[in-house]
C-alpha cells in the first residue's frame, strides 16, 4: 500500500486524454496533410535580372538509365533565375506514375513540376492534377517541336505535357540468318519468322514482350497496321474485329509453331533485349533506345549483324509505330507556375535536346534532328545516319500513342491476360477478343464513357 499514490480520477483522465490527444494530433498531421498546397516559398529581396531569386521549385522526377543526364542543366537555370530546384522524388517510370496517381488521388501534391508520359498524363488530367500549359508556352516556343510528338501531350484541346524525348517501335532484323531484307508487311514478317526458325537451329524467328502493357502495346500496333482500332469514336472496344483476330492470330500461330521462345509470355523489355543480344532472335520490333547496347560488341553478339527498318504495314496500309514521349507538366497545386514553366522551357530547350541526343535518345525538336543527322554523316557507325533519318520519319508519320484516356492501363490490365490465353492456345482468337471486349466495355461504361 505504501507504493500507492493518491491521484484523482480527474487527474488520471487528464493525463490520459492529453497523451492520447497529442498522439491523435501527431498521427493526423502526418496521415492527412493539407491537400495540394505547395510549400511556402521563402522570400528574399529581389535582385535585378534574377526573376525567381530566393525561391525554391520542387520537382517530381524520373530517374535511372540516361534520364538523369538532363538534370545537369539545372544548375545553369538556377544561376540564371536565382531559384533553387529541390527534387522531392526520383524513381523509374512506373514508380513515378504510381506515386503521382496516389498523390493526385490523395491531394498530397507539394511539387511544381512533375515528370509525365504521353501514355499516363490522361489519368492526371482526369484527377484534376495538372495545369494546362497553353498559357505559359507561346506558338513561337512550340514551333520547333515535331507536331506528332507535341500533339501526343494534348487532350481536350489543351496542352498538358511538354515533350522531352520520345521512342517508337522499329523493326530490328538480323542480316546473318538468311533474311532477304526487312518485312514489308506483317504477313511477310510471319513468313520470315517461320523461315528463320526452320533454317537456323537455336534461333527463334521472332519474339514480343509478352505481358502487361508491353503485350497490349505490341498487339495495338499490329492491330492498327491491319486496319483495326482499339476503341471506336465513342470509346467502346473495337479490337474484336477481323483485324484484331488477324493480329492476335499471328502471335498465336508463331508461338505454337515454335517461332517464339517458349517463355515469351513472361518477357518484359529487358528480357526481349537480352534474347536479342544473345543472338537468339531473328527479328523483332523494338525501341530505338536500346541501340547503343545492341551495337556494342562487349554486350551484344549481334553487334554489326543487324539492320533496322520501318514497321511493317498490314491490311490497313499504314506503318503504325507504338510510340510515347516523356515530358514535363506543371501541377495544378503549384504556386509558382511561371517559375515551373521557366524550368520546363530550359530542360526542353535546344541545349537540353542536344545533350540528350548525344546519349542516343530520340529528342523532340526538329532543328536538333536536322543538326544531328548532318553530324551523323561522318560517323563510323554504319547505321548512325539511317537510324536517325528513320526515327524522325517515323516520328513525323507513324507516331501512334495508345488512346489518350485515363483508362489505358486498366484497359491493358483486362486485355493482356486474354491475349496471353490466345497465344498459349487456351482460347480461340475471336472468343478471347469478344470476352475482353465485353469486360472493357463494362469498365469504360463504369468510367462514364
Amino acid at each position, binding site marked *: 500500500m505504501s*507504493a*500507492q*499514490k*493518491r*491521484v*484523482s*480520477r*480527474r*487527474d*488520471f483522465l487528464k*493525463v*490520459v486524454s492529453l*497523451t*492520447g490527444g497529442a*498522439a*491523435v494530433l501527431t*498521427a493526423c498531421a502526418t*496521415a492527412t496533410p493539407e491537400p495540394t498546397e505547395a510549400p511556402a516559398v521563402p522570400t528574399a529581396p529581389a535582385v535585378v535580372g534574377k526573376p525567381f531569386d530566393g525561391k525554391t521549385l520542387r520537382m517530381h522526377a524520373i530517374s535511372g538509365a540516361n534520364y538523369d543526364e538532363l538534370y545537369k542543366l539545372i544548375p545553369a537555370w538556377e544561376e540564371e533565375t536565382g531559384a533553387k530546384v529541390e527534387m522531392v522524388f526520383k524513381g523509374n517510370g512506373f514508380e513515378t506514375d*504510381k506515386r503521382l*496517381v*496516389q498523390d*493526385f*488521388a*490523395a491531394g498530397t501534391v507539394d511539387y511544381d513540376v512533375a515528370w509525365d508520359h504521353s501514355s499516363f498524363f490522361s*489519368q492526371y488530367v*482526369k*484527377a*484534376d492534377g495538372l495545369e494546362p500549359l497553353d498559357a505559359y508556352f507561346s506558338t513561337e516556343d512550340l514551333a520547333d517541336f515535331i507536331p506528332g510528338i507535341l500533339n501526343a501531350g494534348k487532350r481536350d484541346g489543351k496542352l498538358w505535357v511538354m515533350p522531352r524525348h520520345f521512342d517508337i517501335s522499329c523493326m530490328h532484323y538480323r542480316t546473318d540468318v538468311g533474311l532477304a531484307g526487312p518485312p514489308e508487311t506483317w504477313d511477310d514478317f510471319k513468313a520470315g519468322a517461320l523461315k528463320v526458325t526452320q533454317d537456323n537451329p537455336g534461333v527463334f524467328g521472332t519474339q514480343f514482350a*509478352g*505481358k*502487361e502493357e508491353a503485350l497490349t502495346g505490341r498487339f495495338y500496333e499490329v492491330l492498327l497496321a491491319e486496319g483495326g482500332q482499339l476503341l471506336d469514336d465513342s470509346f467502346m472496344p473495337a479490337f474484336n474485329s477481323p483485324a484484331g483476330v488477324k493480329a492476335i492470330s499471328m502471335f498465336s500461330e508463331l508461338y505454337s509453331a515454335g517461332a517464339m*521462345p*517458349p*517463355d515469351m*509470355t*513472361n518477357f518484359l523489355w529487358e528480357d526481349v533485349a537480352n*534474347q536479342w543480344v544473345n543472338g*537468339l532472335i531473328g527479328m523483332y520490333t523494338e525501341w530505338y533506345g536500346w541501340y547503343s547496347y545492341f551495337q556494342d560488341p562487349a554486350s551484344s553478339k549481334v553487334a554489326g549483324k543487324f539492320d533496322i527498318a520501318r514497321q511493317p504495314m498490314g491490311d490497313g496500309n499504314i506503318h503504325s509505330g507504338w510510340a510515347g514521349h516523356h515530358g514535363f507538366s506543371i501541377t495544378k497545386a503549384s504556386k509558382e507556375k511561371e517559375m515551373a514553366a521557366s524550368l520546363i522551357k530550359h530542360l526542353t530547350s535546344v541545349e537540353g535536346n542536344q545533350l540528350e541526343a548525344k546519349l542516343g535518345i530520340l529528342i523532340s525538336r526538329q532543328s536538333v534532328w536536322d543538326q544531328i543527322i548532318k553530324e551523323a554523316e561522318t560517323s563510323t557507325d554504319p547505321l548512325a545516319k539511317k537510324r536517325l533519318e528513320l526515327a524522325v520519319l517515323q516520328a513525323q508519320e507513324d507516331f501512334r500513342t495508345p488512346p489518350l484516356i*485515363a*483508362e489505358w*492501363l*486498366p484497359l*491493358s*490490365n*483486362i486485355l493482356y*491476360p*486474354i491475349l*496471353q*490465353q490466345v*497465344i*498459349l492456345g*487456351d482460347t480461340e482468337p475471336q472468343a478471347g477478343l469478344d470476352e475482353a471486349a465485353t469486360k472493357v466495355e463494362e469498365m469504360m461504361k*463504369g*468510367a*462514364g464513357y
Partner: protein
Amino acid sequence: MTTQSVAVGPSRRKRKRFQFTDRHLPLLLLFPSVVIIVLVIGFPMLYSLYISFTNFNLTNPKVIEFIGFQNYITLLTRDSQFWKAFGRTVLFITLAVNIELILGLGIAQMMARLARGKGLARTLMMMPMMFAPILVGFQFKWFFDAQLGLVNNILYSITGQSQLIPWLIKVPLGFISILVAEIWMSTPFMVIILEAGILSLPTEPFEAAEVDGASGWQKFRLLTLPMIMPFIYTAMAIRSLDLARAFDVVSIMTGGGPANRTELIWTYVNRLAFNGKEFALGAAMSFIAVILSLVFTYMFFNNVLKSRWTEEVEL
C-alpha cells in the same frame, strides 16, 4: 460556489475516490502504444473496409460513392477469375503446408539425433530463411527459365534431350515451380519449430517404450507424433497465415501469369487494385482473403487446443 455545490450533490460525494495504483501504471504506459496501433493499423483497416463498400477507382479519385455490398457480390457471383485464384490459393496453402510439414518433420527428427555438428547443420539449414523472398523469386525464376535455366540444363546434361520445358508457363508446371520455391524458402521454419518440440519431450516414455521393445516407427507414431502435435499445429497455423498472403515470390516468378495460370489471391488483388486502378474491388477482395486466413488459423489453433498432450496418453 453555490452552483458548484449543487452540481456535485450529495450522491457524487459518496462515490469512491479514484486511486491511481501500481495496477494502473501498465495501462497508462501502454495507452500511447495502443492509440498509435489503433491509428496506424485500426484506422487504415477500417478505412479500407469502408473503401470496399464504395466505387473508388484511382482513375477517377474525385468520385467515392457508397454502393453497399456490390463489390463483394461482383467478386463472388460474377468474377470467375476470382474463384479460380481463390481455389488456387487454397490448394497452394494446403500443398505447401503439408509438404513443408512432412519435410520439416523428417529433417527435425534427423537434426535432433545429430551427435556432432548440430550448430553447423542448423546454420546451413536456416540459410533459405535468410534470403529476402524477392531474391528467392529471382533465384527460382532463373532455375526454371526455359532457355538459360538450371533445371533444363541439368535435364539436358542427364538425358540429352534438348526440348525446352517452359516450367513457368505450362500447366501445372508453373504452379509446381512456385510451390517448390515457397517450400524451399520456408521448410526451415517448420524444422526449427518441430525440432524445438522434439527436444522438449520427456525421455521417460521413450525409455519405457524401449524396455517394452517398441520399434523406432512405433516410438515415432505413438509417442513423438502425439506429443509434438501442439507444435505441429502451431507451425501449420503460422505457415498457413504466411501462405495466405503469398505474394513476393509469385510476383517475381510469374506475376500470377501467364494467362492467370498461377494467379493467387494477392497477385490478383495487386493486378486489380494497382494495375487496374480498381481500389474498391481490390479492398473487397483483400477482406475476403483475410477471412480465408482466419479460417485456416482458426482450424489449426482449434486443433492446437485439442491436441495438447496430457498424462492420459495411452502408450
